[in-house]
């Protein structure tokens, strides 16, 4: 529909304006929902399946799985009903090698990580929204792009991991 209207615009000038304003409209109408500080999902899968699923989705998103860390091996000893509590680190060369050499003060936040833990027979999965860091680097399009890309990836990793695999 839009495309056919575009072709109906006879002059280049009209085509230009039409395109420009359509783009503006599209941008306006899809403005972001809202910046959650933490991004958190519940998977109805039990921990082991959810964990496997999460690792697959990280890799499918083009990241390397760096390490899985137990937060505390002694959790159950101290009254917790579960010791299924892990940190999953993931990243790529850009995140862990290129950017840190340029912005060393980002290093403590990298590589990105996801917390995954059991809540009875289900699993909670969450991460920090990297866009939280954007306001500390005003006028830095390179970092803004990186933070927003990471946020998008994190969201799709979590939402993908939330789905039951067949």
């Amino acid at each position, binding site marked *: 529909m839009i495309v056919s209207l575009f072709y109906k615009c006879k002059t280049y000038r009209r085509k230009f304006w039409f395109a420009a*304003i359509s783009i503006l409209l599209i941008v306006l109408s899809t403005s972001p929902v809202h910046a959650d500080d933490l991004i958190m999902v*519940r998977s109805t899968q039990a921990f082991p399946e959810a964990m496997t699923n999460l690792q697959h989705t990280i890799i499918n998103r083009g990241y390397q799985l760096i390490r899985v860390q137990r937060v505390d091996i002694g959790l159950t000893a101290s009254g917790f009903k579960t010791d299924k*509590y892990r940190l999953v680190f993931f990243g790529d060369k850009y995140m862990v090698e290129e950017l840190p050499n340029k912005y060393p003060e980002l290093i*403590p936040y*990298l590589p990105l990580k996801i917390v995954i833990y059991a*809540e009875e027979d289900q699993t909670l999965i969450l991460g920090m929204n990297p866009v939280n860091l954007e306001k500390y680097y005003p006028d830095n399009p390179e970092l803004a792009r990186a933070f927003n890309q990471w946020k998008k990836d994190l969201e799709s990793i979590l939402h993908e991991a939330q789905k039951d695999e067949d």
Partner: protein
Amino acid sequence: MKSTMFDLVKNCFILTICLLCFGSRFALATYPEPDGKKLYDLHCSACHGENGRGGVGVPLALPDFLNTASDQYLQKTIRLGRPGRIMPAFTSLRNEQISAIVQFIHTWSDTTPTQYPETPVQGDRHKGAQLYSKHCAACHGNNGEGGHGTGVTYSRPRDLPIIAPALRNAGFLAAASDQMIKATLIKGRKNTPMPSFLKQGLVEKDINDLVSYIRSFEKTVQQGRDKPVEQQAKPTLVYESSYSFEETVENLKGAAIGANFRIIREQYFNEGLAEPGKEDKQKKIVYFCNFNTLNQALAIDSRVGLFLPCRITVVKHKGKVLVMSINPKLLSNFFNNSELDRLCQQMYETYLAILEETTL
């Protein structure tokens, strides 16, 4: 010249018309009838459970809750959240979306949503205060600040199966009408620790006094939450060391142990990404932990493992040796949990002390 101007104006006009038509089409296309279940799954189920059984949040699928909660209460609770008590304010959901979520929540119960008259409850708040100390403070806190932790204690070790919500809370007070609070005290909530106070032997007048007392919290409650961290605070704590890289790493471990931590792991920053043997030897992470603090933190808020165990990184950058950590004060902003603020402040001081000791 003239004709160009004319063209331009004409084009703009035509385009405006096109846009107006399209604008509304877009509006329709991007705002379909909201799907309450989908929205609930996306925004609420992580904390309240996919079927409203609770988790980090309190249970919602309770008959006694659903037949005392008005739609207005649910809508306002979603919109305003509970400042400092984890439940976020959903400021960017549209009213139709919030209504759809409320509709969906109602599918868990066959009762019709209650509506309350606006009439305030008249009572003696001083008497209410006494009754409160006697009957409520043990669970809801001496000052109505809520129990320690929140929600259901699935995995966390705590005193009650469900933690009593905060009552001295701007979100709660703005959402709950006097009549709804009264109904809650009269009925209680079966299958939760919250009893019916008529059955506990209080009479209606006592309950009115209690409601007046709870309403009086409004005078002292913080609207919204003080953001604990000034916006200009840096996200990273950075100290420069005058020692060599290796010496600095050793100092750091000594300082962490001196501050009562156990070193649990030491690794190169890009270990696991770089080929083994080819890691960047100028960037090293030291992880350390104090199990007491860790368990305390997890019992308050199970999400906090995201920033644990403690970690400090030593980096050689442009000839300088830098020692750095995240700024734990910043974390307060992410969790909306005032109980955690104290812990974050503590962690902040600990990190500073270790960084200082390392570079001294």
